[in-house]
Structure formats: C-alpha cells, structure tokens
C-alpha cells in the first residue's frame, strides 16, 4: 500500500525563529506528507531519537541562529551512532554558500537558503526520500 512519507521538521539549539520551519512543515503537509514537528530548542540527540521512533524517512533541520556548522555535524554524528544514516538529512536557513557547500560535503543531502521555492524543497524531499524507500523500505 502507498504510505505517505514521514518527515521530522526540527529546530535545534538556541534558536527561537520557527516561522521558516512552520512554512516548510505546512508545504510538506500539503504535498501529502506526514510531518512531525519537534518544537523548539531540541538537542541533536532528541531530534535523532524522534526520527527513529517515528520511523521517519527524512529529517529537515531549520537553523537561523548561525550555529549551523556545529548543529548539522552533531546530527550527522548522532545518525551514525544510531546506525540511522539511511534517514535523509537536509536543512535550511541563513547559511552562507561556502558553509552550505561544506555541509553538503559532510553528508547533508541538501541545504536550502532564503528564497528557495517551496516546490523545489518538496521535489527534493519526494525524490531523495523516495529513493531511500526503494532501498530501505
């Protein structure tokens, strides 16, 4: 049976700006996905545990605090420690292009910056998580 993609939308660390996360959550919902929103101020461990318990296909992290070079890698480490690297990990926020490139090199599958069209994000999630489903089930 066709089941909806399940995506965790997360906010990490000391970052209270959740408008972006809510806009993304809503866009993914409207694209037919089941979006689990963690709420603010989560630790990388909390986010990865959530993704595991919810059997999520992907994690989308929103960061507007400037701590992206710390928090993205911490979540990558957690995913590795939990043997959950198959979960698609992407994110967005106010992230300079050179940082975005560095994050992609470290294993973040996509980094979206302000102005990214919602459809582009939806298409990415559908594509990447669909590919994962084909591999992992």
């Amino acid at each position, binding site marked *: 049976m066709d089941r909806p993609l399940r995506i965790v939308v997360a906010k990490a660390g000391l970052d209270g700006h959740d408008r972006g996360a809510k806009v993304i*959550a809503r866009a993914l919902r409207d694209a037919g*996905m089941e979006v689990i929103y963690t709420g603010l101020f989560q630790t990388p461990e909390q986010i990865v545990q959530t993704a595991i*318990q919810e059997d999520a296909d992907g994690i989308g992290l929103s960061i507007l605090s400037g701590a992206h070079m710390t928090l993205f890698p911490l979540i990558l480490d957690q995913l590795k420690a939990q043997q959950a690297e198959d979960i698609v990990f992407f994110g967005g926020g106010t992230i300079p292009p050179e940082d975005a490139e560095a994050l992609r090199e470290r294993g973040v599958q996509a980094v979206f910056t302000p102005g990214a069209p919602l459809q582009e994000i939806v298409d990415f999630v559908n594509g990447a998580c669909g590919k994962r489903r084909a591999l992992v089930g």
Partner: protein
Amino acid sequence: MLSLDTLLVEFHAGRPRGLARAITRAESGEGASLMRALYERTGKALTIGLTGPPGVGKSTLTSALVKKARSLGKSVGVISVDPSSPFSHGALLGDRIRLTEHFVDPNVFIRSMAARGHLGGVSGATGDAVLLMDAFGLDVIIIETVGVGQSEIEIAELAQSTLVALQPGSGDSIQVLKAGIMEIADIFVVNKADHPMANQLKREIRSMMEILQYGAWVPELAMTQALEGTGIDELWSAIERHRAYLFETGEIERKRRAAFNHQVRQLALGKLQHRLDAAIASHPDLSIDPYAASERILAEF
C-alpha cells in the same frame, strides 16, 4: 522492505527501531505476519486512553502521566493521533512539542500517528500500535486521541481505562449532558483547575453523574494542572483504582474482548470497504435509483 525476520530480530532485541518499523508496517496494512509472530506476547500492558476537546491539555497531561509512570520505574509508550488532511492526505503531527523532556529517555517510546481518514479519534492502525508496544514490553501505554470533540468514542474500546479531559469555561451544562464522550469516561479530568470556573465544571459533571445510571464503577473526577504537575498523583491513584476494579471484577476480560472485537471489525471493514468501492465504481448504471443499486451490489457480494 525489510524482511520480517530481520525486523523481528530487531524487535526482540528491544531496539526502538524494530518497534518503529513494526508500527509502520502495520500502518501500511501489512501487519498480518507481524501480528501472528507477536500476538502471544501481548496482554501485559496497562493501557490508558485520553480524549477531550482540542486545547484542553491532552498532550501536557500525557507528558505529566509519563513522568509519573517513569518515577514508578515503568516503561511507557505514547501513541498520539492527529488528523490527516482530507485533501492532501498529509498531516502535521505536533503533539511531541509537549513531550520533549521524554525524547531521550530510553524507556519512553513516542509515536505520532495520522488518522489517515479514519474517524472516531484514532487511526485505523492504533490498535495494532498498542499491541506492538505491549509485545515490545512497555508497561504503560497512553493513547492520546485527535482532539475533535464529542464523538471520539472508539478509544473506550481500545483502552482499559478511559480518561476524558475537560476544561473550565468552555460551555454550559448542556455540553456536559450531551451524548458521546461524556458516557465513556472511567475518569473525568478537569484540567486547568486553577481557572476560576473549574469548580463550576466540577459541579456540573457531578450533577450529570447523578442523573446517569452507572454500573459497579462510578467514574472518578480528578482536578489537575498538568503544566505544573498538580493533581497528577491523585489522577494516577484513580487510574490504579480503576485498574484494580477491572481485575477484581473480571471486567478486564470484557475490556479485552471489546478491544479484540474493535480490531477485528476494523480489519474486516477495511477489506470490505475496498471490495465495496470497487463494486460501486464498476457499476456505471445511473438509470436505477441508489437504493436499488446498493441492493444489487450487495446481492452480488
């Protein structure tokens, strides 16, 4: 998809991912072989259903109950159901926001479920998720329904103890007298008990209970402020008294039967619905009236 054997190995090893994937499988309508392998391990957990209108504080109450159960050394499963969009079939599952303090506790497993078009306050696979958490060895399972209102009564069939949460200042005594969720409570919870109208609501519930006929169990009433943790010990005691009542009177068997019936009905109806939809779709003849058409389709079933 992961093979059943691999999945069961993870499940039996007590890995959260095993349970998470098992629930997904059941949600996708592929729970049959899983249930065959695990059903005999079920029947040990205490199951608590929590229902009530949106905004009453169900998730906050759930969080407070999780904390209480953990302080008693019990492992806890939470199933939190939110509505799916009838248009996109997507869902925004936001109950976790109130449960964050339990995210990294290895003895707490939280699963958000989208109703996926199922009415009645729970999802079609909620019963499966309860059994899977039970088989996984979780001691207490809390099922939080969609917060939609007055007819989300399926929870009473699924859970051993049903809590109906109400908040002060949200309607007059006629709301309290309406049929539906008011009739399924084993325990009433007046949350936000610091509200000036809390005592009025308490009186209204009490006077409604005087009118209704109850059997051996008369619903208890707990006053809580879930956010502060006030009244949670008393609520927990009420849950334990209800559980003791269920076991002393043998009522627990009736509850188990109800949960079993509920689930069998769900599964059978799901299959029937599929066949029925196909039969209706392949019946293009609009010249006969709907009554005659439905009779004809059922006759061919």
